């Protein structure tokens, strides 16, 4: 059954400006906060002069240090904790990176808080620092030694098989650091209601915020509410507790006033995570026909001094093709920055850029068509585990895509195609994959005498359309109008609110909602299928508003994972499940044009054919594809966070100096879905889409640029000077 086209259920709020994001609250007696930040690359504060700041009229509080017993460390998300990094500013004199907060100012007005923050002066003891992965002082560790629970992928004997391969490709790729820059700034309104702490903050992980801030302040998590109905873009930047919330809560308690903090755009480049720099050496061994015999993927991956943010690049590069021998080796390079972290397609984006660029090199080295070479290396089983893939329609994505894109009209010779205006034309292809992860979920569903159905479930609405997908599922199942379905997500008052990321949101929430529907039907005395007259059925039960609660876990996940999720801890599982391995798959086709005189690179059209299981909500899925492809174009041609070798930290910390794709950069983006439910995974059959749609785009762009110019592009972003 195909899902009908129905719009986004919260579009009306969004076009009228009534959707309420973190900072869109102005409680009475609100005070405004601002951070002053460190201006050195590394060292310690010797003294902090706050006198001038305190003298600004309207300033109520200037805090430079908290006690360990009033504010504890939050723990690193990937190390069993709650926060994007373990380091909590304002607990010691240590400055680990430029831009680290050194004082918190709270004032009656925003202008007073801003003025005061500018007046904070610190004296420092400066230490040498390293901000680039090749800088002196950067140190590296082998990931599988430092983090044995994130082992490298190894299959067969890749070194030997590579050495014996008749065709050898050996290429190194550099992917820059990048920042998520969602349009909504990092911001919170923090408020005490008696002993209850209420945090309004747009987050992808309300559960970690609740438990993390409770642990930091020694509160009962049950006394913390985190409310995040809408998120102005997440992309990984809001997937953990941020270090401002604890200090804000303490300031609000001292002042007995609600406090709002909107972190200025410049500061956001240092106050949250970012995509780390990574370097990838890809070696491919093949026979003369291009059949892969071995692949080796060595990655250097930036992290901070205080946390080891793991790399998982080889998780997908080992599975794109039937490679009998695979050798992964990932090194973590420690630098003096805040801890990097997840940004849309965190591992898969850079990994696919590198690997799929190398596969294109192999196609040219063996004289094969890049689509045909990929088809010839297809696999139905997971080469790493030997398990079947729960579903893999990648070959179909490629053939359908080639047909739809007009690939057969491509002259494979580099530099051979020109447009009427003299621009060089290049067509490129690449594939992508994203692991299917699922997390435990709790769903609570009630039906009212007015016929409305309310569902509260684990999940966060960050624009991907989870609210619409849930509403649609309920409406279709019960045969009720979609307007009669009320969806509550991102709210710790209705469900634990496990992290929504890795495109698992919908794949996690929908099975729980599906299960709740079965229970609700029983409570309403309705059959397992067919339309339900909700209002009449509710009245017949004699209860005001029958409610059911169900829990769900991913395939093979032990029920204890629910307890972890309820404790605000990371509890997702996959992509290897007991009986199968699950990935979503995509093929991307891109056309570039390079203007003859300016060498400006444009992308007039792109096509994505995706195998994401069942399409849960066609309208929002279409937008997800377009958004993901635009991210890929932006990754390939625009985005790079430059570090400052003189003073530490990042340099281009505004939306002007950190360009992202704008409307004029984007023309036609076509897409198609295989739309086959993955029933091994769940009854609902959805895999994941949000990240998949950008994975492979950058490689397709780079391969198209090669086709247009004959110049290989081994580093991103590709700029005019790279195609001179």
């Amino acid at each position: 059954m195909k899902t009908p086209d129905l719009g986004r259920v919260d579009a009306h709020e969004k076009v009228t400006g009534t959707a309420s994001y973190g900072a869109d609250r102005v409680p009475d007696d609100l005070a405004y906060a601002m951070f002053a930040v460190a201006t050195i690359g590394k060292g310690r504060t010797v003294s902090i002069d706050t006198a001038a700041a305190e003298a600004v009229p309207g300033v109520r509080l200037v805090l430079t240090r908290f006690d360990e017993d009033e504010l504890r460390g939050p723990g690193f998300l990937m190390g069993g904790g709650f926060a994007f990094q373990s380091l909590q500013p304002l607990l010691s004199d240590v400055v680990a990176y430029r831009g680290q907060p050194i004082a918190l100012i709270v004032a009656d007005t925003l202008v007073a808080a801003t003025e005061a923050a500018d007046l904070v002066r610190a004296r420092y003891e400066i230490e040498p620092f390293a901000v680039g992965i090749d800088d002196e002082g950067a140190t590296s560790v082998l990931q599988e030694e430092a983090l044995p629970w994130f082992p490298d992928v190894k299959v067969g004997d890749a070194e030997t098989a590579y050495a014996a391969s008749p065709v050898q490709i050996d290429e190194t790729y550099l992917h820059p650091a990048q920042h998520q820059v969602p349009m909504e700034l990092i911001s919170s309104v923090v408020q005490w209601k008696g002993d209850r702490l209420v945090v309004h903050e747009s987050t992808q992980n309300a559960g970690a915020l609740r438990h993390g801030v409770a642990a930091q302040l020694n509160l009962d998590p049950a006394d913390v509410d985190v409310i995040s109905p809408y998120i102005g873009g997440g992309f990984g930047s809001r997937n953990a507790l941020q270090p401002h919330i604890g200090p804000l809560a303490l300031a609000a308690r001292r002042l007995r006033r609600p406090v709002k903090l909107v972190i200025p755009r410049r500061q956001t480049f240092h106050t949250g995570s970012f995509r780390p720099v990574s370097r990838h050496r890809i070696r491919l061994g093949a026979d003369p026909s291009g059949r892969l015999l071995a692949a080796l993927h060595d990655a250097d991956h930036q992290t901070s001094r205080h946390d080891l943010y793991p790399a998982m690049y080889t998780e997908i590069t080992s599975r794109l093709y039937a490679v009998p021998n695979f050798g992964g080796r990932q090194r973590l390079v420690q630098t003096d920055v805040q801890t990097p972290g997840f940004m849309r397609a965190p591992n898969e984006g850079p990994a696919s850029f590198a690997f799929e660029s190398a596969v294109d090199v192999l196609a040219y080295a063996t004289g094969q068509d890049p689509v045909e070479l990929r088809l010839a290396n297809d696999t139905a089983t997971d080469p790493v585990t030997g398990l079947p893939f729960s579903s893999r329609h990648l070959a179909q994505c490629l053939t359908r895509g080639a047909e739809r894109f007009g690939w057969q009209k491509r002259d494979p010779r580099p530099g051979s195609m020109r447009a009427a205006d003299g621009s060089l034309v290049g067509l490129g292809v690449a594939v992508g994959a994203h692991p299917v992860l699922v997390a435990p979920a709790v769903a609570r569903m009630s039906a009212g005498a007015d016929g409305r159905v309310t569902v509260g479930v684990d999940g966060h609405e960050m624009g991907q359309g989870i609210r619409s997908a849930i509403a649609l599922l309920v409406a279709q199942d019960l045969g009720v109008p979609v307007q009669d379905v009320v969806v509550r997500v991102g709210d710790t008052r209705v469900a634990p609110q496990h992290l929504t990321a890795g495109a698992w949101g919908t794949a996690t929430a929908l099975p729980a909602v599906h299960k709740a529907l079965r229970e609700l039907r029983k409570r309403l005395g309705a059959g397992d299928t067919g339309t339900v007259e909700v209002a009449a059925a509710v009245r017949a039960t004699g209860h005001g508003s029958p409610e059911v609660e169900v829990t769900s876990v991913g395939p093979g996940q032990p029920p204890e994972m629910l307890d972890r999720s309820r404790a605000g801890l990371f509890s997702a599982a996959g992509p290897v499940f007991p009986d199968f391995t699950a990935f979503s798959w995509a093929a991307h086709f891109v056309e570039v044009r390079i203007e003859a005189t300016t060498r400006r690179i444009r992308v007039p059209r792109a096509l994505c054919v995706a195998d994401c299981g069942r399409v849960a909500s066609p309208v929002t899925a279409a937008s997800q594809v377009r958004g993901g492809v635009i991210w890929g174009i932006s990754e390939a041609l625009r985005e790079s966070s430059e570090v400052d070798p003189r003073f530490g930290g990042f340099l281009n910390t505004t939306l002007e100096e950190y360009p992202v794709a704008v409307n004029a950069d984007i023309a036609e983006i076509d897409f198609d879905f295989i739309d086959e439910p993955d029933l091994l995974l769940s009854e609902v059959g959805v895999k994941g889409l949000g990240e998949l749609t950008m994975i492979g785009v950058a490689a397709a762009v780079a391969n198209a640029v090669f086709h247009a110019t004959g110049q290989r592009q081994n580093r991103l972003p590709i700029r005019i000077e790279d195609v001179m």
Partner: protein
Amino acid sequence: MMKTSPTAGRPAGLVETAFTVNGEQVRFELDPRESLLDVLRERLVLTGTKKGCDQGHCGACTVHIDGRRVVSCLTPAVQVAGRDVTTIEGVAAPDGTLHPLQQAFVDCDALQCGYCTPGQVMSGLACLAEGHTETDGDIREYMSGNLCRCGAYIGITAAIRRVADQTKQTEV
């Protein structure tokens, strides 16, 4: 709609400023450093207008002053004395009926997270009024001051195109 915020501890040099917002008269004692954006959001609680950068780079804060689009984060509020400000809250009809451009945004799914959307709608209205809709390329250029990190650009362009074509038809 007048909301007074605490003036305790305000420095001297406040400027009494009156203007209209969505047709209603407002009057404040303003610090000359206060942006129109912050006055709209924090004093008037018109939070539909968003802050995405506070530096004039993103367009999330776009409003109309006397019918022309401006970024309200770079507009000192004292400068709008005597002018008419329109925000996203003033775009739909009083009975709640969406403006055709808002409806086109819904129909074309011209949004994801929705954070840039009020600014896109305000800029889109201006783009239409300015007549920068001859080609889709024109729309893209004249809408490029409004960033959308979710990448809803194709829907945004389609929504503006739809209204431009409707308007043309009614004019013919």
